[in-house]
């Protein structure tokens, strides 16, 4: 840094070639080793979110070349539970990491050479992407929409921007972070070299959080957020989930819903005596079943989870006609793709598709009963789809039409 700079610039900026602890930012916590640990944790958490997020995207945007298997039944519940939990746990880690490296934001001169320029430009999608992904995810599970864009589309495409920035950043920092992590922590070495100095340097001697204490604090913050939310999908911790946006035990028939009957505009349609479940398409006997005929069909009972994309889930006992049995009644060939349509007049999720493997599963049901009781209209009366390993938004409610493709 040139000595000709005004004192105020020298005081509040940092030299990009020097360690993070400089001048006004002299906290002993601004340590390269700590930054590397936090970065590694964040990279791991974001990668887990990315992979589970891709799986959720694939559920909602089926690709013919990579069909979603019907089993294991709880796979989506596990993966989406992990997605939301890892995202929540990453919030304190991201904040800590950004705080720790913030002096680099006010580096002066801002750019030193071509590679430094490339690295710094890449920090924008890294920081902005990380902040956006966690903010938009947390807002979405709280059903807070202060924006006009589609959450799913924007969260998905911004995930690519953020992961790309992480790849570039890991490449830029890999060797340096490895060296920082390989270096033994400084404090014991200092105490060994000079016991007197080492004693003074003990953080317990009035100097605030130690580096280890700081990492512990970040872990504690992630832990508190996890313990107070993960019960929305992990039943043993349900009673502790006081900050979870849903309680898997609160709602009609004791279970929550994501789209109510009033919002869907089906209150009258579902209760109308004119309701018919229509089965058509590539069938030898098209059907139009009224409620009594629907209830007279042979039923199957299955214990299956509802797993919301927003991270809550519950498992329940469902009873209804298996789709494969319904198709047999209509004289359809097995191994067909099946399109389900809701009574819901509009909405992004008024239809969903079963691939042949899903349609043929013995537990892919058009459920009329939940835990032995007739289905509440909020849960999809007269009948709803419930199938294993399936995103909650694709468990179509108020089903009125089954088309064999």
């Amino acid at each position, binding site marked *: 840094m040139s000595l000709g700079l005004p004192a105020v610039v020298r005081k509040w900026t940092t030299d990009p*070639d*020097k360690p993070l*602890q400089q001048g006004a*930012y002299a*906290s*002993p916590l601004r340590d390269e080793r700590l930054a590397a640990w936090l970065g590694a944790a964040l990279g791991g958490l974001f990668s887990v979110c990315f992979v589970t997020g891709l799986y959720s995207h694939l559920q909602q945007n089926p690709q013919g070349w990579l069909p979603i298997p019907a089993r294991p039944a709880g796979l989506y519940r596990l993966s989406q539970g992990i997605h939301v939990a890892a995202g929540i746990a990453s919030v*304190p880690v991201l*904040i*800590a990491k950004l705080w720790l490296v*913030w002096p680099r*934001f006010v580096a002066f001169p801002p750019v030193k050479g071509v*590679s430094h320029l490339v*690295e710094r430009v*890449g920090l924008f*999608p890294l*920081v902005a992407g990380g902040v*956006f992904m966690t903010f938009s995810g*947390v807002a979405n599970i*709280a*059903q*807070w929409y202060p*924006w*006009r*864009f*589609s959450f799913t*589309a924007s969260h998905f*495409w*911004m995930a*690519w*921007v953020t992961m*790309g*920035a*992480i*790849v*570039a950043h*890991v*490449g830029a920092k890999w*060797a*340096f972070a490895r060296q920082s992590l390989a*270096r033994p922590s*400084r404090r014991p070495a200092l105490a060994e070299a000079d016991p007197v100095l080492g004693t003074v*340097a003990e*953080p317990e*001697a*009035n*100097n605030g*959080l130690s580096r280890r204490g700081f990492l512990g604090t970040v872990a504690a*913050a992630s832990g*508190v*957020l996890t313990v107070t939310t993960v019960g929305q999908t992990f039943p043993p911790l349900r009673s502790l989930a006081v*900050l979870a*946006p849903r309680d898997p035990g*609160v709602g*009609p028939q004791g279970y*929550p819903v*994501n*789209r*109510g009957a*009033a*919002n869907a505009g089906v209150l009258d349609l579902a209760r109308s005596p004119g309701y018919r479940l229509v089965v058509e398409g590539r069938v030898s006997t098209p059907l139009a079943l009224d409620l009594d005929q629907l209830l007279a069909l042979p039923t199957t009972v299955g214990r299956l989870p509802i797993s919301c994309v927003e991270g809550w889930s519950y498992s329940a006992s469902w009873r209804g006609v298996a789709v494969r049995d319904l198709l047999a009644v209509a004289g359809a060939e097995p191994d067909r793709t099946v399109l389900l349509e809701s009574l819901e007049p509009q909405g992004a999720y008024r239809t969903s598709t079963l691939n042949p493997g899903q349609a043929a599963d013995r537990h892919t049901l058009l459920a009329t009963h939940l835990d032995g009781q007739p289905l509440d209209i909020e849960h999809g009366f007269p009948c709803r789809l419930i199938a294993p390993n399936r995103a909650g938004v694709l468990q179509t409610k108020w089903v009125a039409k089954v088309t064999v493709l």
Partner: protein
Amino acid sequence: MSLPTRTGDDQPASGPEDRHQFETAAKGGAGFWLSAAAGWAVIAVGLRGILQNSIDTRPGNLARFVVGGALLHDLVVAPLVIVAAVVVGRAVPGRARAVVQGALVVSAVVALFSYPLVRAYGLAANNPTSLPHDYATNLLVVLGVVWATAAALVVVRLQRSPR
């Protein structure tokens, strides 16, 4: 958390010269440029997706939140935290300082996470089962547990070194 006093603990193990040489070598290397190329290719996939699906992603509105979030953090939140940390470093007695700092960090993060729940924005979605709890009360309970734990830790520390 810039602390008012510095100790020998602050001194880096390796000198600035070593570090500079090291970082320069890492940045100039093939690994740097390969990962930069790969990373920017993935970023381009995301940007193309945003632009090609502009009906859903509303690039103008999205950019406001993406850029705004980064600027809000870097220009407002981070400086405020630094100032707050200096205040805490000076105001809180030495032996309680680390615990108070830790409890403040945990409290701030939990409060930040709970903000949309306490404000109950989700009720606007007219979902009968959304936000079933009294989140303001629950947040206070969680913060109470955090500070009770902090108080217990301070007591333990004082008993361990009664100076």
